[in-house]
């Protein structure tokens, strides 16, 4: 973000202003499309509810994201280490992504009840795949000459992986993590829709049933801001972990 926060903020402010003017000028029913001012008022008046439900969703999301990331990373390493495992597992991993999440989520609720587990599991189910795929691709892109060199130093497969393959795969792994973070917001909400008593996804259903459109919009706004912040946190972690890239003229 070289040019700073101003361009996106200005664009957002412009869209919100246009929205406000349109709703007022055209006399739109606020139940169909509430003006941003009404959404903001709702947010201010119900901050407590938003924070407590937002915290619930955030917890599910982070637990699911980290579990998914660890599972994806481990699967990626194993698939890279054992060719037979990659060949056997790859189609099944793809299959997990073909099953519609809204179809799986109710089964998870059936198994684990109205706890955090089905939501975190839904998130993890969506998260692990981009991480696993990018880990495999990243690990196989390591310079073979570097591996040969390490072997002449007496390095075994584990040291080759930890010393050469994983660090050189890290940019790809972070690409996977960013995609996973974006998916995890959707995962958490879908998990809550199927069965929950709190959380932003639950809140959305609640407002929808009661026809409180302003509340629905306010919840979506909170969720969006949360997702954007999380996404950029991953990017920030990436910049920190890959600070050497600033100096890398060529890739290895």
């Amino acid at each position, binding site marked *: 973000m070289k040019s700073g926060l101003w361009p996106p903020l200005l664009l957002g402010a412009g869209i919100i202003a246009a929205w406000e003017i349109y709703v007022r000028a055209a006399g739109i029913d606020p139940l169909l499309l509430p003006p941003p001012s009404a959404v903001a008022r709702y947010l201010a008046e119900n901050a407590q509810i938003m924070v407590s439900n937002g915290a619930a969703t955030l917890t599910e999301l982070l637990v699911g994201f980290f579990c998914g990331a660890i599972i994806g990373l481990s699967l990626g390493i194993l698939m890279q280490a054992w060719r037979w495992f990659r060949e056997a597992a790859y189609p099944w991993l793809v299959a997990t992504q073909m099953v519609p999440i809204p179809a799986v989520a109710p089964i998870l609720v059936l198994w684990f009840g109205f706890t955090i587990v089905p939501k975190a599991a839904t998130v993890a189910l969506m998260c692990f795949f981009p991480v696993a795929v990018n880990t495999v691709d990243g690990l196989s892109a390591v310079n073979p*000459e*570097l591996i040969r*060199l390490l*072997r*002449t*130093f007496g390095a075994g497969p584990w040291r080759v992986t930890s*010393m050469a393959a994983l660090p050189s795969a890290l940019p790809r792994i972070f690409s996977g993590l960013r995609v996973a973070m974006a998916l995890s917001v959707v995962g958490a909400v879908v998990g809550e829709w199927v069965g929950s008593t709190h959380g932003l996804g639950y809140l959305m259903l609640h407002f929808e049933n009661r026809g409180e459109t302003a509340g629905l919009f306010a919840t979506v706004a909170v969720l969006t801001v949360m997702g954007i912040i999380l996404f950029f946190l991953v990017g920030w972690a990436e910049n920190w972990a890959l600070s*050497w890239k600033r*100096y*890398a003229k060529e890739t290895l």
Partner: protein
Amino acid sequence: MTIEPAVMPAAMPAAMKVRGVSKTYRDGSRTVKALEGADVDIPDGNFVSIVGPSACGKSTLLNLFCGLDKPDSGSIEAPVLGNGDLLGRIGYMPQQDTLMPWRNVTDNVTVGLECLGCGREDARRRAREHMDRFGLSGFELSYPGQLSGGMRQRVAMLRTFLCGRRINLLDEPFGKLDAITRASMQSWLLDYWQDNRCTIVFVTHDIDEALFLSDVVHLMCPRPGRITLSLEVDIPRPRKYEDVVTSAHFNGLKATLLQSLGRDG
């Protein structure tokens, strides 16, 4: 003095002994005979060069020397190291510098030691002792992407030499450097080798470089790769680059090598 074929008299103990080594590999649908019946002796403590045109099997031979590949037939032994697998016991500096862009200079240099089980801090301390000698002082915390080609080669070389191996294989270490940097690196390498006597097997396609550096030059010819001439370089040491490469004796040796290349190549 030239001796044909490549087997030297057994005056000095051999660091490495290569007998009748053949290696064939598949390149897509065709099979390439990279080496056939190669015989070489590498005397202990010598600086030995292997010279030949591109794709004559030099790198194949080095890969066999350091145990990364196994020959189809024939034997490769390192009597000074005793019996056993060569892999992990012979120093090797590959053609690419293969520095890790995510590690700074110090931590790139310590890679070999770390693989050998040396602790990170201990390895760093030992690396720092050699930074000056390798012209890397002040660059300890730089990343490879910030270094010139010559410096990158010195980092890679220190990484190999820091392991303190008795036999070190260098695969065209100066191949990508400009002529001036190259000449100064050659002199620097000779100085270093004179102070830290180890056996060096130096692969190059540059005849001048091989003659200037070596005790013995082995000439390789392609298809199939084999050693066609072994030339003892009786130029006294220490050698000064500008004196050696302009001397009549140097040019006489060079003519011998070029004639052999023209005959067999």
